[in-house]
């Protein structure tokens, strides 16, 4: 079926089958490969995107079910060559190692800060509890979120 997806403030007309998941359409059909998937069972958070202001898992959604929703992926954050402050903070604070979890982490952070610009450490740990990272030990990621929260002030 033909559907229209609203991604990063643009409309995309996509021909997709009912059983295609959102992550499949984002990555394979539309080429938004910034969003990763690492487990396909809702455990790792690599596929985290923002839908209507909430961080959600694109491996757990059907593309056809996302018509009319406002979807933001990692590709929708940076403005041309200007990084989003969250991305800046992730770089500044050394929160990136292999980078595979990073898009998901950044999106989870954005959803948090959009709702709660001044989160405490518990809020941050809780907001990121669905995103696995095997490299950093999370400490620098949490510091990056704190740093971004200061910048966004």
């Amino acid at each position, binding site marked *: 079926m033909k559907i229209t997806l609203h991604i990063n403030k643009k409309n995309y007309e996509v021909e997709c089958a009912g059983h295609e998941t959102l992550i499949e359409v984002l990555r394979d059909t539309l080429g938004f490969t910034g969003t990763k998937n690492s487990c396909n069972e809702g455990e790792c958070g690599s596929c985290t995107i923002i839908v209507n202001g909430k961080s959600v898992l694109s491996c757990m959604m059907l593309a056809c079910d996302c018509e009319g929703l406002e979807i933001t992926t990692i*590709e929708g954050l*940076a403005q041309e060559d200007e990084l989003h402050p969250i991305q800046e903070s992730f770089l500044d604070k050394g929160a990136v190692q292999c*980078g*595979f979890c990073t898009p998901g982490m950044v999106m989870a952070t954005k959803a948090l800060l959009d709702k709660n610009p001044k989160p405490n450490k518990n809020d941050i740990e809780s907001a990121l509890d669905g995103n696995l990272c*095997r490299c950093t*030990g999370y400490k620098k990621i949490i510091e990056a979120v704190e740093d971004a929260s200061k910048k966004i002030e």
Partner: protein
Amino acid sequence: MTKTSKRIHTDPVGKSVPRIDGKGLVTGQTKYTFDVNLPGMLVGKMIRSTQAHARIVKIDTSKAENLPGVKSIITAKDTFNIKFGSNEFFFPHTIDQMAFESEKVRYIGDEIGAIAAIDEETAQKALDLIEIEYEPLPAVFDVLDAMKPGAPKIHQAMNNIAVILPVNFGNPERALKESDYVREDNFYAQVAAHTCMEPHVCIGQWETFSNKITLWMSTQAPFKVREALAKTLKMGLNDIRVIKLASGGGFGGKLEMLPMDFAACLLSKKANGLPVKICYTREEEFAFSRRKHAMHYKLKSGVKKDGTLMAITGEVIADGGAYCSYGPTVLAAAMMRIFMVYKIKHFRVNGYRVYTNNPISGAIRGFGGVQSGFSVESHMDLLAQGIGMDPVEFRLKNITEPNMVTVNKMLISSNGLKECIEKATEACDWKKKIGQQKDICRGIGIGIAADVMGSKMYKSHESAGSIVKIEEDGSVYFFTGAADTGQGSNTALSQIVAQELGVKYERIKCTAADTEITPFDTGSFASRVTFISGNASLNGAKDAKRQILTVVAKEHKCEIDDLDIKAEKVIKKEDESVIMTFDEALELCYSFNYGEQIIGRGSFNPTTTPIDFRTGEGNVSGSYSFEAQIAEVEVNKETGKITLLKLWDAHDVGKAINPQSVEGQIEGSLIMGVGYTFFEDLKFKNGRVVNPNFANYRIPRSVDLPEMKTILIETNDPKGPFGAKGMGEAALLPTAAAIANAIEDAIGVRIKNLPITPARILKALNEQKTLKKGNEK
């Protein structure tokens, strides 16, 4: 607001510059092999054994071949049946795996062949149509059973023991007799998984007209993969190009050629050169990649009343699974590390690396050191306890020192172990806390460790190289063979190049890990890259700088040695007067009069002597790094729940090229160690993994963190680039022991089996109660 992207870093060594590849990673624009989609690309899948141990009677692929959309199917008959493995130089008889087995399978998942089809769906359907007839053989899954006479024979090895390592020095029997206190302990450390966020993935393409292969992959060691491919495919090294793209983690799991890499190339050949992508699912990742060796440790040691460690004896038994992989050297590393940490003259430990019908055990961050770290460091605490000595004092009395030769001939130069212990104990207020918080069930414990930086595991040399090419516009193109799988080696090596060249870090463009373009490098393992590839990069930059200065010296009629480049300027050494800018110097090099190309080359091979595995003697690494780690815990005696309050890690890193990266490595290691201590436990039933997903194999999440404090100790190693040493793995080694030691300090029970679960704590507390009651009677 200052933007990271616009900041300039001159003299970058020792500064936390942002990652050289960072922008691509934070914007999601970097392409991992996982993301790559080539025109006409096929999907490959492995044909795997469903049996743990069986003879293959018949393989029938005809039905699958007739399925529309299937482009190629390969089995052993399409191969040369050449065995490969990872310890060819040291243990030639452990080269025991073939890409595809045709006679016998030895674990559930053993590769029998592979399929390529137009899409995932078709490939999966084709897999279901493959018919394999087996004649089941008795299988053995318990490592101790596997060693018994009469156990099912998995390979030719007697009692399934692939390798025995007897390490023997001095006269341990006599030393034990002379000891005031002798004790024996048994420990067990379980199986764990790497769980890289990017699963194993590769794309193979066989150019049929030229018979050349390109393999894009997520790997830690492209040059090792190239060698194994050349051997098993009977091709020249120059027929194969392995390109590492951005890689989502390795941790030892992406250190070898796997049958999937071989398969992707051969499938492509049979499919007339269409590229074939094979990507593991998360389940395959858990079940069929590699796993940590489970190890049984038996230790019997003696000490004098004054704390002198007299002798260590014992036995290590490692469950190797179906094939050897890196097993023999993992076992060796598990045994030899002790010499880097403790001054010991009398030593006898026998190591056994044993085949079972479980999946293959191989390299994983720590390389045997995590299992030995837990066992040895727990044992040391118990020895100290036996003579009533403070565990820190006991360690300070027995640790290795700078500039010494160990009993097995390791040459230790810089050694900050003493300082590490002192700084860590100071930071955590050890003296005030040890034994003092029992009333609130709090305790504190220490573990110490050392690590190599390199291991001579590729043939007989371990060299790395670099090329530093500088263009007329002053751009610095830096080529290294080192494989950055996320640890940040491209960044650190670029910092070294910029520092030596005297230019800003932002000038450097780094190209890495492409076997056809970059210099040779054995790979990212054994914490070797900063030290070995770092020295190679330093040498390349030195060479390039000399070439530039040669031109400038000619132009200005002075000696090269009088000149230097600092902060983007060519200067006279004696008075630091500026002769010209770096850009002007490059313009000069490429000018009408000179036309001199600036192409620096560097090479580095550490002067070491490989370990002689018949005796355990040798100096495996060019230098050694050290650390002390302290854990503070609180235990709930009612629930058995352990709260890890804080970890302190003081680490002798020689010199932190990028302090932020170094901290990141330490913090990542610590949390990996915490996961292993408390819950990571890959479980098997009759050779099949029972928890192959993140829901049932828990790795730490953001809500599982202790407070962490890292303390960097800089001992400026004389051989390291700008004094730096390797440090990517050591912080993981003593974590479990530090925690176990802290638990004993808190509640008086000793946990000798990992993982340390609340159930085990409660069981130990109950046993303690029963014991006390018994004593009272």
